[in-house]
């Protein structure tokens, strides 16, 4: 059985004026269903870009992203959008909730995009919001919620359609430590309960340590382990990734 996600030799470069900036230089890695990994690395190293490429938002300059053996970027736009809608959830550093909608409506949005009926989408949203502990805040708009609550709503929104992959880009980066800790715990708990595979980009080494598998992005490559001691995996060659739950 192929891994849930497999990245093969990802290259990504930007043109900044006359200068070409190589962000990814052949990064490869794979993720098993239900696996949870942390991704660390200094600012500007390309963690977000890596996440966007994995999350089918940004096509790589070279290389492939395979979901269960299927090349994501070979899909036509509409199919890719539908795939993203059902299979991938995103949480960003900023909550990016739609300010004019309530927590419930925000959470129901992916369901509505999937053309669920309003009732069905809101029912699913209500369940997930209860799961993240916001059953009492359904009708509040983002402006009326605290930072932690906003991020919980964002998390609920990412999870409402029960995706198989959650991509979190510094979900606690904008929160104080205690609140961030809470979000992290929630992430781990949800991963355990729902079996959703997750890649969590974080700056916080203590939070990263708690993940079963740790990755580091350096020099445009993905390196196993969060510290200096981690082994460097050459592009395309990944030595037997650990299975779920290890």
């Amino acid at each position: 059985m192929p891994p849930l996600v497999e990245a093969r030799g990802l290259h990504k470069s930007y043109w900044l004026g006359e200068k070409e900036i190589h962000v990814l230089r052949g990064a490869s890695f794979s993720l098993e269903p239900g696996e949870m990994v942390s991704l660390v690395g200094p600012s500007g190293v390309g963690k977000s870009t890596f996440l966007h490429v994995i999350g089918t938002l940004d096509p790589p300059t070279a290389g492939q992203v395979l979901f269960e053996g299927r090349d994501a970027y070979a899909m036509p736009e509409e199919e890719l959008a539908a795939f993203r809608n059902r299979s991938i959830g995103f949480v960003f550093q900023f909550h990016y909730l739609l300010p004019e909608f309530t927590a419930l409506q925000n959470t129901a949005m992916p369901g509505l995009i999937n053309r669920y009926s309003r009732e069905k989408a809101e029912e699913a949203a209500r369940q997930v919001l209860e799961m993240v502990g916001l059953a009492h805040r359904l009708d509040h708009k983002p402006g009326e919620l605290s930072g932690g609550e906003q991020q919980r709503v964002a998390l609920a929104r990412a999870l409402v359609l029960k995706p198989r992959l959650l991509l979190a880009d510094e979900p606690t980066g904008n929160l104080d430590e205690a609140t961030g800790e809470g979000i992290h715990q929630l992430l781990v708990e949800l991963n355990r309960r729902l079996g959703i595979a997750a890649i969590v980009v974080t700056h916080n080494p203590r939070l990263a340590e708690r993940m079963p598998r740790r990755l580091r992005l350096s020099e445009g490559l993905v390196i196993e382990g969060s510290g200096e001691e981690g082994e460097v995996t050459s592009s395309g060659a990944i030595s037997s990734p650990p299975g779920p739950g290890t």
Partner: protein
Amino acid sequence: MKFRKRAFLVALVLLGAAFAGQLVLRAFLSNRTLLSPDALLAISFGGEALAFLLIGFFVSFLARGFGAREMGLAALLLAIAAFIALRQLKPPSFSYDRFFASTEELILWAALTGAGAWLLGMWGASAGVLLGAAGTPDLRFGYEAGIARTHLRLNRRTALTLIALGLVPPGLLFAAGVLASLRYRRGAETSALGVIVAAGAVVAALLLVARWVQARAALARLQPGQRRKRPATVVMTAISIAGVAVGVWALTVVLSVMSGFEADLKHKILGTNSHAYLLKFSNDFSEWKSVLPKVAAVPGVTGVSPFILNEVILSHGQTVTGAELKGIDPATAGTVSELPRQVIAGDLKWVASPQDIPTSVVEPRSEASKQLEGPEYQQYLEDTLKRRQQHPEEEKNKLDPQALKALPGVCIGKEMSHQIRAWVGDVISVLTPLGEMTPTGPVPRSRPFRVACILYSGMYEYDSKFVYIHLPEAQKFFRMGDNIMGLELKFNDVDAARAEGRRVVSALGGFPYRTKDWAELNRNLFSALKLEKLAMAIILTFIVLVACFNILSTLIMLVLEKTKEISILKSMGARDASVMKIFVLEGLTIGAIGTAMGLLLGFASCSFIERYGLQLDPDVYYISNLPVNADVGQFCAVALISVALSYLATLYPATKASRLSPVDGLRED
């Protein structure tokens, strides 16, 4: 963005079929139906345009997108094919110098065909893309509408404000019109006051609304020291709505006034003239008495009356003027025209019985003063009557009362009466150059007539040119025996005059009979009016167009403002078509609200003008009040144009937004 051969081939075949269909349809319609040339062009080219739209829509599904290249290439080939086809067909030229179109004209036509096919095709394709031509067709727009609503801040409060702004000024204008019409009945002096009152009411209402909005805003969200930020796009949205509203307002009011002029002109022309003339391709129409009942029996014909028309010279005292002398039958003239109702002094029947014309001074009819507003006319009437009273012996010196009574009667127009200073009872001389040969050469024939009535049609030309005498008198005067020039006809349906006329001719067995309908008789006037109206419509449509550029820039601002939101929606799996739908819906909402406001305002303005009756100088115009004719079809057409243009305005920003990469908005911070 790869080229799709199948889409191209289908587009080419369909475009060719549409073009050929247009040519065939035009040929068919011109041979088999009685449509006017304008209607013919409108139907055939309208059908072609619709076909191009549908082809674009259809091809967008094959091309999985706009299919700009496929349609472009197909349109180019169509243009070339059209050029070759037109060269073979040799269409008539628009130039007066030559009969067939020149090569330059053909190139222009072909280029227009190609460009039209491509543009309309792209327009149709945009609808296809919106409905999901790129992937699975998706007609729903539930969450897109919700998001569009938040972008425009269309919550209950703004909706209420919009309704207030949209309804209050037109309502006030309407009320002012009603008020003015009430005051106007009492006298002309109060009407100026009415304008001031109405304008004041409108301004006061606008101030009140603004004040109310401000107060509501203050109540709703302005706590001391706190002020909610209002993005520039909201202000721009409001400006865009106002722009569309102003454009639509101007368009509806001006077109209504133009229609009013047209309708008024038609009314006046048909008041004096019949709907059609039945003529003969020969000078001998002496069998008219047997033709008349046959014509009257044709279904759709409501009136028939014989006539003779010739040019003469009139003189009264020292004044001489040219005139169109019409011999009529007063008994039936009323069935084909409004002549009996145009009499302001005397009686039309007196032309047939001149002995009834009184020798005493005839006062103008009391209802005439209603038709003839204005102090100048009162002055004129007084002068005329005074002159009559001062010189009553003028004619009596020449003729004894008995001989006076024996003179035939003539009806003259109000302007004519003014020019030659003749009033009912005066004797005028009618002179025709068709005189007798005498040993000294041809001598014009002259006969005295007594004025039997004064007519007022409202058309200056008619009132200053037409004089009416009894048909037998005309036959005698022109030495025509029992001959007449033709029969005047009146139909049930004015606008079908041409078709009805043909029916009458065929009932009489065709040649040598023929009809000329009112539109044909007054073609110059009406085609000038139509051209003027078309030019006005095009010029004023530019106002709406400019307003749509407002929509365009507002939407571009909105797209820039919402880049992040678009990215988030795309990361949640929103499709490109959905993002496009959001912005198209926004633009259409702006356009629709603006259009609705403009239409209401336009309707209220028309009603105000109609009720209040803005005065025109009747010496300059042939109309005393500014006419308006608020036609529902015209309003609908304006609404359609405005909404279609605002849809067009949304396409660029919406496409731009839909093509934004999801990371564009995420990367910024």
